[in-house]
């Protein structure tokens, strides 16, 4: 997520894929601490993004049901 634009365009699937990739990278354990921290921060942002997307989608669908 290098910019806000990317953040908006980032799809759930891409985010989840990247999150998995980050886990694998951290699991390898060959990164400098500095790089690991960057990966960690990115990972946390991604996981929150994914959760938000899911929850917002569920709320929207719930809202539509109530309208009907």
């Amino acid at each position, binding site marked *: 997520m290098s910019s806000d634009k990317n953040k908006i365009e980032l799809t*759930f*699937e891409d985010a*989840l894929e990247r*999150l*998995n990739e*980050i*886990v694998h990278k*951290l*699991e390898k*354990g060959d*990164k*400098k*601490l*500095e790089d*690991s*921290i960057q*990966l*960690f*921060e990115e*990972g*946390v*942002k991604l*996981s929150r993004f*994914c*959760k938000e997307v*899911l*929850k917002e*989608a*569920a709320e*929207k*669908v*719930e809202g*539509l049901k109530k309208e009907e």
Partner: protein
Amino acid sequence: MINENKIYSVSDATTLIKSVLEMNIPPIWVEGELSSWMRAASGHLYFNLKDSSSLLPTVMWKQSALSLLFKPEDGMKVRALGKITVYEKSGKYQMIASQLQPLGIGDLYQEFERLKKKLSEEGLFDDDRKKEIPRYPFRIGVVTSAKGAVISDIINVLNRRAPHVKVILESARVQGEGAAEEIVNAIEKFNSGAEVDLLIIGRGGGSIEDLWAFNEEVVARAIAASELPIISAVGHETDYSISDFVADLRAPTPSAAAELAAPRYDDLLENISSLERTIFNLISDQLRDFERILDEYDTVYSWEQFNKMLTEEENKISSLIEVMKLNEDHLLNIFELKANSIRKMLDSLNPISVLERGYSIVSLERNDTIIRNANQISENDAIKVKLHVGNLTATVREVSNEF
């Protein structure tokens, strides 16, 4: 020749009857209703053909029965081609049928087989042209009748399982005149505008005539041309339609289609949380390792001014780890605040830069203890050596305590 004055034995009379019937009646087509249908363990079929006033016992040998395209049922109107034979032992006549066709829908079966063969030869069923079903759909388009049970089945399954998935219905009649065209239009409409991740097309169970729209060539072609991936769910588990063969995925029922399409909301959330926990744990481990390396430097290089700086940064890391245990939610913020100071420290005190100068870190493989003294280690111990570039493992050949 029949002799009116002759006295016949039963056998002779039966032989006479048999020859008269069998020689004078060529194979004939007989139409009637199936009754007392039964398949013997041998694979032969036994049934009666009947109408309002008569009954004709019929046998179909296994070899002929194998080529049947439908499942015979009592009450079905059929047409059978057969030869009349007399069974002497019981004095009964019966028909040996070589062909059996369901009436009325017999043409549909032929059409089904014809189209299936044609499209299959064109490659429309090939695996390599199947589109991948998106793993995490948020919007699913459904092509079915607004009045049917299918749409409510799908909505029920998704409400329960994936409440984050929005269902968009494009209603189309799913049987009768014009149904195929409506299905085609709905598929095209989704493809030309509506934002959905995939389509489910289908209807509930019914006779082959009810399901027929999904065996029409126009529908098959629309499915093949669709850019959106399509799951076909037509009829019950045992019904196959041309749509099923062309679609990217076949589901045995519409409810199953919804289950195949959307992963569980709870599973998704749990999966994400578990990934998050994993990266928390991994970064904690690495910070602890780093802390330990700082300890080692503390011992190895007793430069006072260095120690002072180290202690300061070590404390920051320790408190970071403490906080992490207590409250994961606030960790990110703390990281953002502390990241800069940690980075600064890393710049000035990168263990890698020490390794760069030619030093190595040697640790015991079994417990990761860093080795400072030869008496920590014995012959044949496995050790790990961290170099500036890369790592290596080795076995200790000899231990000497000399400086």
